[in-house]
């Protein structure tokens, strides 16, 4: 049984009308040069969620849906959609007349192929997001019907072009997905066509004249430019050689200076979808961090505001729970968790340690450990240096270790040869997508990156996580997650540090780059220059 979602259609009409109207105010033309850092390994957003890929690929690919600034779903390749009452059937009505950049028509077969053969197989998060999708029926060229084993409300948040790009079946079917040529030369349905990738220099995308949104995109061209050195990126932004830099492309310290300039704008919008949180992972299987007490003490000791002020120059918010406060909108976030003090509480920390029998020796040292630092930039080194000093005050003596990416990944996620690791995770728009992977026993997957490397295992928590994932009722779900957060605040397998605020720095002449809820990961079809 299908129920038409008139709402969707209506929204679509309004949207197109609005786009048509505003075309008078906005000017077409111009080349946008945006910072892409680092140079991406490929543009295969269907098999990698790597940040720089996310900056370029969504300009080429479309998703079934898009999300507005409030993260509400709006039509994209799907003109409308319906969810059955039992939540197990989702029907998408696809836009007609859409063409791939190579001129071939876009059909429901592409959707079926993308979800079942690509995203469920090789996308890093796809197997999770589409876990419940058993099959996709394609009664005609413009209808795709998803059949689910269980209801999956969180899935409806995963249809954006960054998370789930729809890829051309005719170019991928029957090929080895891992070495298909579209990895480096993407062919999509999006507002910009891939033209050229000059390794070490830039990726060039030109306007798609046949884009299905009438009158869009405004820009003639987008060039993604690679500049390895942060100070040089800042200089290039200042000089107007580049117009847009997101995801920390411009270091916060420079932003503090640049935001005073009229020619430059700064925003923290556009990151709601990824919801990043910095944290410390502990190896809970061996001393000294096998004791919850020492983990709690660390959480009590660290001055989160200091980190935010001195390393991220004021951008960020102290973490107060295992869940980011941005989940407050969906009612999942719980306030007032223990061991997340507003100000560092050294006395409490020492008491916790004393009570647990972790006493200082003659030199005042209670425990020694090595702190591994995520090798993604200088900020994390500074954070480590701060923690070394701060934790020294309660008798935890740290050595810092900063290795390159492969060594670090191998150490933490394959060899488990670490005791304490600074990291950051995207919590994503739903905890099932971004948070569960830290804590579930089923997420202790040796050799898989960014999952439960603490090897924390709690059957009670596992049960709560499982039912929380499936619960459609917002109120009940909120209660479950409150309990989850309480358990995690007491056991502290991971200490959350702060809710990160990524910065987007842009030339003031650049408008409309924030049209999508994805911010920099959006399609930029409505971006234009106000000369």
């Amino acid at each position, binding site marked *: 049984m299908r129920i038409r979602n008139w709402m969707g259609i209506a929204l679509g009409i309004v949207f197109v009308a609005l786009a048509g109207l505003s075309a008078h105010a906005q000017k077409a033309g111009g080349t946008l040069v945006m910072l892409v850092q680092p140079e991406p390994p490929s543009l295969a957003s269907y098999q990698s969620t790597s940040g720089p890929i996310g900056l370029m690929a969504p300009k080429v690919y479309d998703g079934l849906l898009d999300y507005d600034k409030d993260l509400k779903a709006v039509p994209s390749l799907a003109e409308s959609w319906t969810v059955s009452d039992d939540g197990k059937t989702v029907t998408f009505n696809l836009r007609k007349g859409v063409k791939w950049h190579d001129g071939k028509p876009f059909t429901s077969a592409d959707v079926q192929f993308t979800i079942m053969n690509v995203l469920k197989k090789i996308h890093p998060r796809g197997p999770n997001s589409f876990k419940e999708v058993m099959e996709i029926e394609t009664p005609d060229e413009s209808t795709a019907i998803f059949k689910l084993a269980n209801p999956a409300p969180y899935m409806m948040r995963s249809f954006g072009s960054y998370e789930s790009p729809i890829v051309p079946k005719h170019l991928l079917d029957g090929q080895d997905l891992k070495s298909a040529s579209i990895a480096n030369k993407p062919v999509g349905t999006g507002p910009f066509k891939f033209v050229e990738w000059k390794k070490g220099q830039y990726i060039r995308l030109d306007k798609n004249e046949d884009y299905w949104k009438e009158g869009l995109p405004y820009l003639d061209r987008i060039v993604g430019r690679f500049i390895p050195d*942060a100070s040089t990126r800042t200089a290039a932004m200042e000089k107007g050689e580049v117009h847009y830099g997101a995801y920390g492309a411009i270091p916060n310290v420079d932003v503090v200076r640049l935001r005073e300039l009229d020619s430059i704008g700064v925003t923290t919008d556009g990151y709601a979808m990824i919801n990043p949180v910095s944290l410390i992972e502990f190896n809970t299987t061996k001393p000294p961090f096998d004791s919850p007490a020492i983990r709690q003490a660390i959480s009590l000791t660290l001055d989160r505001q200091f980190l935010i002020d001195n*390393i991220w120059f004021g951008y960020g918010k102290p973490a107060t729970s295992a869940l980011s406060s941005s989940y407050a909108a969906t009612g999942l976030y719980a306030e007032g968790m223990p061991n997340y003090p507003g100000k560092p509480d050294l006395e409490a920390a020492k008491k916790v340690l004393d009570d647990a029998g972790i006493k200082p020796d003659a030199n005042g040292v209670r425990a020694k450990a090595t702190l591994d630092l995520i090798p993604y930039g*200088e900020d994390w080194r500074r954070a480590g240096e701060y923690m070394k000093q701060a934790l020294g005050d309660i008798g935890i003596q740290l050595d810092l270790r900063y290795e390159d990416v492969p060594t670090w990944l191998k150490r933490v996620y394959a060899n488990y040869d670490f005791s304490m690791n600074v990291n950051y995770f995207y919590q994503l728009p739903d905890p099932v997508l971004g948070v569960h992977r830290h804590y579930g026993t089923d997420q202790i997957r040796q050799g898989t990156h960014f999952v439960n490397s603490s090897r924390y295992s709690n059957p009670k928590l596992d049960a709560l996580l499982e039912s929380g994932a499936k619960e459609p009722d917002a109120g009940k779900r909120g209660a479950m997650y409150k309990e989850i957060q309480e358990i995690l605040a007491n056991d502290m397998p991971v200490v959350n540090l702060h809710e990160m605020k990524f910065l987007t720095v842009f030339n003031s002449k650049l408008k409309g780059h924030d049209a999508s809820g994805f911010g920099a990961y959006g399609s930029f079809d409505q971006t234009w220059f106000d000369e």
Partner: protein
Amino acid sequence: MRNFWQLYKRNRSAVAGLIILVVVVVVAAIAPILFPQDPFSLAGLAMSPPGENGFLLGSDSLGRDVAAGIAHGAKTSLLIGLLATIVAVGFGTIMGGLAGYFGGKIDDLLMRTTEMFQTIPSFVFAILLVAILKPSINSIVIAIAVVSWPAVARLVRGEFLSLKNREFVQACHTLGMSDIRIMLGEILPNCLSPIIVIGSLMVATAILIESGLAFLGLGDPNIMSWGFQVGAGRTLLRSAWWVVTFPGIAILITVLAINLVGEGLNDALNPRLRERQ
């Protein structure tokens, strides 16, 4: 010795270099007295300009004292320079000495090896070594030594080649002296001067390489050094110039001083120059 000092003294800039170098060494030695606190300690208000909030040379983004860092870092930087040089000079002398003394196949083999090292882009190779050995003082010293020794080997080989045919060495052969004793006791002391000169310049280069590695994020995170300060402060260049500029000046002055001393040593030790004067 007195003779040496007389000759050295004639080069005024070399004397200036020596004075600067002595000052740097003294600062390194008394750093724990000047700045008893851990140079990593968060001593006060972050990013204070020089002279404010009790920071002579300002503070960095975490409120660490730049001056304390420079004083404590002097020891590390000099140590890295010295150790890397000792290793490079030691190894290069052995390789160059063997190659020059024995000649023939050994020479060919050893010289091809040094050629190999000179064919690899050396800084990239140093980065590779540090990355593989994981960033620490030890691996930095090893990496610098590995890319520096071929120059020493070539120099020593040349010296050995010319000295081994000198008549005093032949005289030792006719006395039945063993090769080892001839190499160590007869030839080596006579090529110490150029080795000392190249060694002194190598200390300077090593300090520069260390700062370059640190710039690329390959420093030891636990030990205060000028390279560390420069690497940590480089993004602050435009917002808090003092954080990176003062350590940079420390590097500049020290490298400069070592070079002046090296040139002075060269003038004083190089007999060819001496005869000309």
